[in-house]
């Protein structure tokens, strides 16, 4: 059987590029990543080159859609990337985040003792992971949503979903029009910790038992020393795991499956699911994803680091 090709085109560093061959439900896949070092024009050129020549494309290092409550916001820079692709299905991972990550938190709540009710959870950003945010709230966790802290530099912890929605409604319609690099680490910023802000915002990390959310955000503001915190995230490489271990994280829980020693971004895995479903994107529902995830026996990977 010919392998299906899924390529993730990322605004992140090309240093993380890789390729793996893997099989899902008997279907062979060739999965690869192509980083464009924060260069939008290069990303558009890469997308045009791949369009029509692969089975699915994932957009990495950027979200197209943010969902907060019932409201959808569209990041304009990401829309330019999406519009460069005319034939091949292209996904940003938001569909999978809303299903898989919600399920992961439910799994942790029901099947482990890692997040009992009252657990203090810092989500570095919730606007890009509202499903996960809702699931932590459902599990009875004591939340801090760090969207203002880490994306805007405002040391104000948002504590409820209602306040998150209220602030998102004020800010996101305009923030989504800004150059993406102003609100999210792209390119070389993904390879480094912002030590000054990490020190300034360290108390938010240290007060929490669980640090959850996008790994580039988690890493960018990672304090010099953690105190056994549980990290719940998606995309990690072996060097990321070493960094977390060195800095004192207790557990690493990754929401997407590990292939060749690394977990892939939700955009990649959503691309795999779309290629497996072989349906038009507009016809795919959250239940399609959930059904497929169950058939694939997806479970979070829980790793003790310290």
């Amino acid at each position: 059987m010919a392998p299906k090709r899924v390529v993730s085109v990322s605004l992140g560093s090309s240093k993380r590029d890789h390729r793996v061959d893997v099989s899902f439900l008997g279907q062979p896949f060739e999965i690869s990543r192509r980083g464009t070092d924060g260069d939008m024009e290069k990303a558009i050129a890469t997308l045009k080159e791949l369009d029509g020549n692969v089975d699915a494309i994932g957009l990495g290092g950027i979200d197209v859609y943010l969902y907060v409550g019932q409201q959808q916001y569209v990041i304009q820079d990401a829309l330019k990337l999406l519009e460069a692709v005319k034939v091949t299905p292209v996904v940003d991972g938001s569909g999978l985040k809303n299903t898989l990550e919600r399920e992961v938190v439910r799994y942790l709540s029901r099947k482990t003792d890692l997040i009992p009710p009252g657990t203090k959870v810092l989500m570095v950003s919730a606007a890009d992971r509202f499903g996960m945010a809702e699931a932590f709230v459902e599990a009875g966790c004591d939340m801090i949503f760090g969207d203002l802290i880490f994306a805007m530099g405002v040391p104000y912890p948002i504590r409820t979903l209602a306040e998150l929605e209220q602030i998102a409604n004020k800010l996101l319609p305009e923030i989504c029009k800004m150059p993406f690099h102003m609100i999210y680490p792209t390119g070389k910023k993904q390879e480094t910790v912002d030590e000054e802000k990490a020190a300034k915002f360290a108390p938010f990390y240290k007060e929490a038992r669980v640090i959850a959310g996008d790994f580039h955000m988690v890493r960018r503001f990672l304090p010099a020393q953690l105190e056994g915190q549980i990290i719940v995230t998606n995309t990690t490489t072996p060097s990321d795991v070493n960094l977390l271990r060195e800095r004192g994280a207790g557990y690493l829980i990754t929401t997407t499956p590990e292939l060749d020693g690394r977990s892939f971004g939700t955009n990649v895995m959503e691309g795999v699911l779309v290629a497996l479903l072989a349906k038009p994107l507009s016809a795919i529902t959250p239940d399609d994803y959930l059904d497929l995830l169950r058939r694939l026996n997806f479970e979070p990977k829980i790793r003790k680091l310290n």
Partner: protein
Amino acid sequence: MALHEEIHESLIAFCEGYNNNAKLKAMNRDWDRTVLVRATDVDSEHTLTLKGGDLTLSEGAPGEPPHLTVLGDSETLVDLFYGDITPTEPYLKGNLKVLGEEDDVLRLDFISLMIWGE
């Protein structure tokens, strides 16, 4: 073209919008900055000073180099500080420039959106 007095009135409205918002003041207690607002088509300069979460307005340029400089034509400045337009639109059209550290520019946008956003 708007007059210096109109820019002044719009900045008073902006300061009132800010200072009447207790949450916004609390959010900015860590951010002490001076912002020079200069019109490009009329002789008009103002200084916004953020200190300990409070925002004050004075006429003229600050005594020391400002952290941020907002440059725009008088109509754009008035529209912006009255909240009739968001910063994004005049940025993209080139009618507005904000000079300073990127983090500070983002923070000023944040304040503006928190006062006047939907």
